[in-house]
């Protein structure tokens, strides 16, 4: 353990850049921008934060570090770098949506928290150690709780944050409990050590598995641990909601996959139809099946578009859990493609909702009436995002699903083990088209409530949303752009 601090800082350069930017944002906002208008402050701080994230990406691309520090506490390899870049890119889009906001006076603090949460995610994905996983997960979660509550004039925002916090605290306790059992079983917090000492399922391990699945099930909003999601999605400020729905999903799913596939590889069990064997796979399979069914069916009856997205997020979590159940290299590649493109589409959808909300004051379905005539470009983008979420080709969501299902079938010998989950997922995604079309029907079919009135769309939001829509189409039409990168990163990282 003779690593010097200088070495550590160079190793953790992206994280250091983000933290430094966070502090800088706070200082600039407090000292220089106090007198400026709210708009200027949001614009300046967000742009500053974007520059910080861009430099972090630059440091990852131009001078990627490789290797590990303190055992597996702190890793750097192409795969980790890829996930970090994805997380940073999604953060940048979220920050750009903040530019036109005006929901709070505490501008610097909000952007500071976004960057802090990003730091949490960067550390979270760059480790194979339970202790670091837990602390960085808490850094992420605590920032998200506060961000949810940031719209102080809105009582529902505080209510949602409290609910999120209470549920989150509980699930963190479960997670910690599970981790402590894993430590007890293996005498180590390193996932590799844990993997080496776990062979087969003991009663104690069952408890650890259940509590870990509960903890992460909460983070990724899988049923039946999704109760916070509808409230948070509905009431959090738009950038916070978009952030929770995208970047934090990427990081959480990646770590969940790592813990299960690396740490608990010796106790996987099986979830083939009618041949369930003891381990964590059947537990995750149950959660996945429940999420797909519950998320898709409950989304149908929503009248708030944000709540609809929340339940659709539950459903998507179900699909993505299928990749964890398969837990092979190909599954990880499919999961990463899926979660990243899902993040793009979700941020975009939230961007559109934000614009509509600002004009009509709410996100009810009827606020979207006639959107295609009030804001043609914006509604064209909404069209792309929602159809991608529904899985219509040639958008990214379709290829994501296709690849996810193909790799799930490849994962088990004989190819038919997970077929029941794949069939369920495809059937449920047929259901999902119904509610996505409900929104698009409002936008394209129903006449506007007030004829002839154009919707004022802030230029930055418009540009961000258009770029995201372009990305969804591009990655959908040419999946290899992203896939090639993911697969070479996986191959170079020992997967």
């Amino acid at each position, binding site marked *: 353990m003779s690593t010097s601090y200088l070495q550590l800082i160079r190793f953790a350069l992206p994280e250091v850049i983000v933290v430094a930017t966070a502090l800088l944002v706070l200082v600039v906002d407090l000292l220089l921008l106090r007198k400026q208008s709210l708009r200027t402050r949001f614009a300046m701080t967000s742009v500053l934060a974007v520059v910080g994230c861009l430099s972090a990406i630059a440091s990852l691309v131009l001078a990627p570090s490789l290797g590990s520090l303190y055992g597996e506490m702190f890793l750097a390899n192409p795969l980790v770098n890829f996930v970090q870049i994805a997380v940073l890119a999604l953060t940048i889009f979220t920050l750009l949506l903040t530019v036109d906001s005006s929901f709070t006076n505490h501008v610097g603090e909000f952007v500071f928290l976004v960057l802090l949460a990003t730091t949490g995610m960067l550390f979270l994905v760059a480790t194979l150690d339970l202790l670091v996983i837990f602390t960085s997960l808490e850094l992420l979660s605590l920032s998200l709780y506060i961000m949810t509550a940031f719209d102080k004039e809105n009582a529902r925002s505080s209510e949602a944050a409290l609910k999120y916090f209470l549920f989150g605290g509980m699930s963190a306790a479960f997670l910690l409990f599970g981790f402590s059992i894993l430590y007890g079983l293996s005498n180590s917090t390193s996932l590799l050590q844990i993997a080496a000492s776990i062979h087969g399922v003991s009663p104690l391990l069952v408890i650890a598995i259940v509590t870990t699945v509960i903890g992460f099930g909460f983070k990724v909003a899988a049923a039946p641990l999704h109760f916070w999601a509808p409230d948070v999605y509905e009431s959090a400020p738009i950038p916070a909601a978009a952030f929770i729905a995208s970047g934090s999903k990427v990081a959480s799913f990646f770590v969940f996959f790592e813990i299960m596939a690396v740490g608990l590889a010796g106790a996987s069990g099986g979830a083939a139809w009618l041949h369930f064997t003891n381990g964590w796979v059947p537990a995750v399979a149950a959660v996945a099946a429940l999420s797909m069914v519950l998320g898709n069916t409950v989304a149908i009856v929503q009248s708030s578009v944000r709540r609809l997205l929340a339940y659709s997020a539950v459903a998507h979590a179900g699909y993505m859990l299928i990749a964890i159940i398969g837990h092979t290299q190909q599954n990880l590649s499919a999961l990463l493609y899926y979660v990243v493109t899902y993040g793009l589409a979700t941020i975009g959808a939230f961007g559109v909702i934000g614009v509509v909300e600002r004009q009509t004051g709410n996100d009810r379905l009827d606020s979207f009436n006639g959107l*295609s005539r009030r804001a043609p470009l914006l509604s*064209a983008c909404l069209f792309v995002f929602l*159809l991608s979420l529904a899985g*219509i*080709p*040639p958008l990214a969501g*379709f*290829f994501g699903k*296709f*690849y996810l*299902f*193909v790799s799930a*079938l*490849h994962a088990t010998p004989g*190819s*038919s083990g997970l*077929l029941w989950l*794949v*069939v369920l997922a*495809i*059937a449920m*995604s*047929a259901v999902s*088209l*119904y509610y996505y*079309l409900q929104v698009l*029907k409002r936008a*394209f*079919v129903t006449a506007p409530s007030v004829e002839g009135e154009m919707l004022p769309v802030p230029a930055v939001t418009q540009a961000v949303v258009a770029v995201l829509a372009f990305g969804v189409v591009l990655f959908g039409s040419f*999946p*290899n752009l992203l*896939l*090639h990168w993911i*697969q070479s990163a996986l191959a170079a990282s020992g997967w």
Partner: protein
Amino acid sequence: MLAWTIYISFFGALVLLLLPRSSTTLARIVAMLTAVTGFAIALIAFVEHRSGELQTIVRADWMPTLGIQYHLAADGISLCLVLLTGVVAITGILFSWNIEKRTKEFFAFYLLLIGSVYGVFLSYDLFLLFVFYEIVIIPKYFLIAIWGSTRKEYGAMKLAIYSFVGSAMVLVGLIAAYVVAGEHSMSLDALAGFAFPVHFQMWAFPLVFVGFAILAGLWPFHTWAPTGHVAAPTAASMLLAGVVMKLGAYGCLRVAMTLFPLGLAPWGFHFLGLGSWRDVFSLLAVIGIIYGAMVALVQKDFKFVIGYSSVSHMGFILLGLMTLNTIGLEGAIVQMVSHGILAGLLFGVVGRMVYDRTHTRELAALGPMNLNKAIPFAAITFVIAGMASMGLPGFSGFAAELMILLGAWHAFPWLAVGTGLGIVIGVVYVWRAMQKAFFAESVTGANHPPLEPISFPERLGAGILIACSVAIGLYPQMLTKVIVPALNSPLFDGLRKGGWQ
């Protein structure tokens, strides 16, 4: 070059979206030019391509990690259907020349639909085929929901959900086939050449077949078709009945039957007298023929008559596919083209010529209007279309249904008898609708406002479709000489070995 039918349609849609909001006439012209260019390309390819064998158009790696290729190819079957798409696209635009509401968006969705339909017919990689197949759903939904009539949102949603459920079934089958084959390829050749285990084919075949057949209006999954057709605007009904239902039938033949030919083999036991999936589906097809005709017989709404007649005619196609002999399959494909043309014509008369003028489709209300005097052109067109649809010699329907009947006679004599019954009822419902709508006893003294005369685009559209139907009726070899070599190609080897005479 044939690939440009797809690109030019998508490009046309994009151009339309970029036009200024008020440019209605320009939008029509752009749409028309696009459709005509697409048709011209298809026609040139059809004329040049005499051999009827498979010709690759484009083949490039698309997703090398999964072995998926961007592979477009055409054989005689594809060419016939591409040509049909071109004709229906042009006439559909002619019949929707009067659309004033959100014109450019209408034609943009329309061309998007056309482009994807071309794409399905030309795809040779199953992933690509599925991509185009799914894109079709979305413009269909919006065309009906925005520009439709009678319960349009219900009809549109029902159609979208049925299609999506169907394609979900297809997707399950395709993914399973891809993984089971382990060939690292989605190419039709590679998968059709792979010998899937019999027990796999036994469940994958009905899954994929029914998934496609939902869109082809297979009884009892046809219920989306009448409501969808009735709710749709004229051009969309024409496309829906004319080409979109053909996508389903095409998928049944091109994908389900070539990939899983053993799925048609006998089960080895009998259930209710049925010994294989072939028996099941041919029975369903005949039920569809008779049921569609009977229901068309009692409809009060003119468009529902045509909607149910489509179900009946599509039954012929599915029956033709299940005969598994050359003449029956040939007939099925000729029927796809024939019904595409005739359904387009019938919907054009009912939706555009009659409904847009009288604003009613109730047969009882149309009768007193003396339509044979008020709009004689519509009456004459309907008489011709009706005769063609009944299967009168000299029209395309006769040639097609005769071939299917001959094929069915070889394969299932008893069902052929039932089919004959369906043809007889077909004569009756066309007759009834014709009589009630156009030639009812005129009510003396009833004063109706004069109807707007039939416009030139409508005359032209009707003329084109009638000419096509007569041309195929008089000279069906035009189609069969490219279809037969295609059916004899190695792709259909599996089917041929499985009991094809």
